[in-house]
């Protein structure tokens, strides 16, 4: 996926005027937050679970090397293989290599954001292996040559007509405005693919160190068909998904579905532990786990370590006013919304992603709903600091802050200047009490009026009050 994050401002402007996108985003806002709220209300222990999940994740990160070692050893005991990949390129090559060993022509895929992150589909195609996305949303996107705009509802930016159009074009069937008909069509088309694929690739929501298992949570069952039918199952996961035990996984599963879709539990939670056992009649003969780092180990021990607690539930973006207004594609890379604004700079570099941590109203809603209590606004602020340190902030911002600092460190001058500015703005506002246009503040006044100050500064008012008090 091409990086378009530097164009955030233009993309956002276009998105705001895109009536179809706005309609589609309406579905998101009408759905997710309410469903999550009702699920949370039914689980009185929810906040206590969140505290425990935060602490457990912190414990895991402090012992990350040890849990990963334990996980690896158990996968091997189960008859599987583990591949460690420092970069996206390493991961792509490793996966292609496995596919080639199997002489694979087609590969079915369950939903996986990590494979988006490493740009797997394009790479496989370029090298003669055809990937087939099987999650309904991902399938629609693949037909359209599109990319996910949300981490769990990938096609949230599309409307029914878009889907109908894409299916009509590729399936050569009459168009339909019934989602049930469209889904049945996809089911039928993909049945053949599931059966024909040589390799199945899924992601993982969790890696269980105790048992060497990977877990996927899906509602459709495509992830299961992807892994049971082909001869080879490849799990692509990132390193921070390891948890100690099945008991610990249970804690996260209680939080995941409720935070994500507001379900009590995801329909299919499937543990995979190695390859087919000697007397089993089905299941893959080969089991590979590809562990992708891609910048995550660099976050350990830094101010961004807390981001590694993320369980990819999407609650932060579902509740984000910025995401809700501009949609996921505006963020210009794989991970959108608040979690993306923290992760993307790490993965593609703050130089290209500098606008993302600024695309926030700092309303704090993301942190409020995050099941592992990641202080997303704080982490975005850290990126802003980095951006400033690296002189990446726009000149106007740097000069503005520099100018402000000059006055702020000289109190006498500051008072004199702010008194002047306050009087000037009062004059500008006149009787209406509102300022329509303000030099250098177009970003504010283009879209709303600026209230007129009283004409006196805080310090002046304070002194006057003190005087009045004394006279009384």
């Amino acid at each position, binding site marked *: 996926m091409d990086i378009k994050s530097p164009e955030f401002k233009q993309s956002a402007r276009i998105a705001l005027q895109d009536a179809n996108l706005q309609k589609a985003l309406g579905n998101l806002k009408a759905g997710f937050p309410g469903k999550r709220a009702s699920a949370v209300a039914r689980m009185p222990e929810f906040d206590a679970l969140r505290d425990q999940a935060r602490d457990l994740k912190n414990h895991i990160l402090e012992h990350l090397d040890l849990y990963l070692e334990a996980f690896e050893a158990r996968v091997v005991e189960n008859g599987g293989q583990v591949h460690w990949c420092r970069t996206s390129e390493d991961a792509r090559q490793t996966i292609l290599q496995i596919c080639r060993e199997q002489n694979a022509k087609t590969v079915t895929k369950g939903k996986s954001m990590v494979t988006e992150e490493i740009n797997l589909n394009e790479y496989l195609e370029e090298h003669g292996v055809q990937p087939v996305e099987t999650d309904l949303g991902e399938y629609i996107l693949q037909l359209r040559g599109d990319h996910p705009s949300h981490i769990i509802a990938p096609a949230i930016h599309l409307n029914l007509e878009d889907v109908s159009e894409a299916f009509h074009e590729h399936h050569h069937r009459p168009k339909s405005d019934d989602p049930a008909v469209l889904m049945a069509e996809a089911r039928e088309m993909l049945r053949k693919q599931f059966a024909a694929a040589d390799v199945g690739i899924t992601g993982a929501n969790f890696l269980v160190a105790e048992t060497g298992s990977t877990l996927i949570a899906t509602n*459709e*069952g495509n992830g299961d068909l992807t892994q049971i039918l082909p001869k080879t199952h490849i799990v692509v996961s990132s390193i921070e998904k390891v948890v100690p035990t099945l008991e610990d996984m249970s804690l996260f599963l209680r939080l995941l579905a409720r935070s994500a879709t507001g379900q009590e*539990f995801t329909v299919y939670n499937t543990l995979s532990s190695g390859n087919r056992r000697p007397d089993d009649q089905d299941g893959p003969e080969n089991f590979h786990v590809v562990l992708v780092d891609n910048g995550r180990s660099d976050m350990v021990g830094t101010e961004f370590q807390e981001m590694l607690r993320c369980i990819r539930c999407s609650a932060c973006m579902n509740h984000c006013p910025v995401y809700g207004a501009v949609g996921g594609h505006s963020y210009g890379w794989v991970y959108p919304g608040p979690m993306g604004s923290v992760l993307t700079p790490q993965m593609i570099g703050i130089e290209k992603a500098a606008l993302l941590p600024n695309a926030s109203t700092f309303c704090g809603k993301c942190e409020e709903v995050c099941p592992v209590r990641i202080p997303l606004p704080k982490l975005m602020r850290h990126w802003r600091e980095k951006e400033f340190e690296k002189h990446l902030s726009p000149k106007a911002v740097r000069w503005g802050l520099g100018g402000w600092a000059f006055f702020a460190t000289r109190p006498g001058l500051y008072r004199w200047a702010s008194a002047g500015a306050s009087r000037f703005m009062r004059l500008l506002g006149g009787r209406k009490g509102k300022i329509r246009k303000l030099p250098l503040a177009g970003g504010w006044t283009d879209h709303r009026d600026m209230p007129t100050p009283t004409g006196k500064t805080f310090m002046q008012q304070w002194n006057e009050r003190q005087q009045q008090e004394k006279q009384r």
Partner: protein
Amino acid sequence: MSRADIFANIRRGLRRSEATEAQRETVRQRLQQRPRNIIPSRSQHEHDALVELFVRMAREAAAEVVELDSLEQLPCAVADNLEQKQQHELVLASDSALTELGWAAVHERVECHQRVAQVGDQASLTLAFAGIAETGTLMLFSRPDSPTTLNFLPDTHLVVLSKQAIVGPYEDTWDRLREASPGRLPRTVNMITGPSRSADIEQKLQMGAHGPRQLVIFLIP
């Protein structure tokens, strides 16, 4: 190469080289003792209440629940159920508890097979290992008698669950599972809560995406 780099990087971040013996011990303990985290109060009740909770939650997740007085009633109940769905073919798991039932009595209504599932199969019948009351979830696992394709390919998945196998929270199944499969887990463990679904088109929930369109649970004493 990558492996060494990744571990070196993690350890650098943690400001240590190899982990201390104390840290190793902490990890060993957690993996061996497997402490439980908070268990929601909803799943801590007497067994009868858990059975009731299971049925309620499973129905909420859009599973059909059929209560039987005995396992012997199963062939007839299955035939009735499939008839409603206008289905008449069934792939059975090879567990003797299932195969030894009186299928002959319903052979005119149900055509039974024992094999892995194939594309196009109408219905399958398997035995659940456990039922988890907390969310109305079934637990099944792969074994020679019960191939996993049976749980996913057919249009209708019929599952037999004994009331004795119903527990409160997920945690209660893990110890049972470790006992049933000593040394290592079965290749796959499936936790199933209702039939397949998707809301990928305009966030409108549709049932029957890729897995079974219907999930029927036969509850036996």
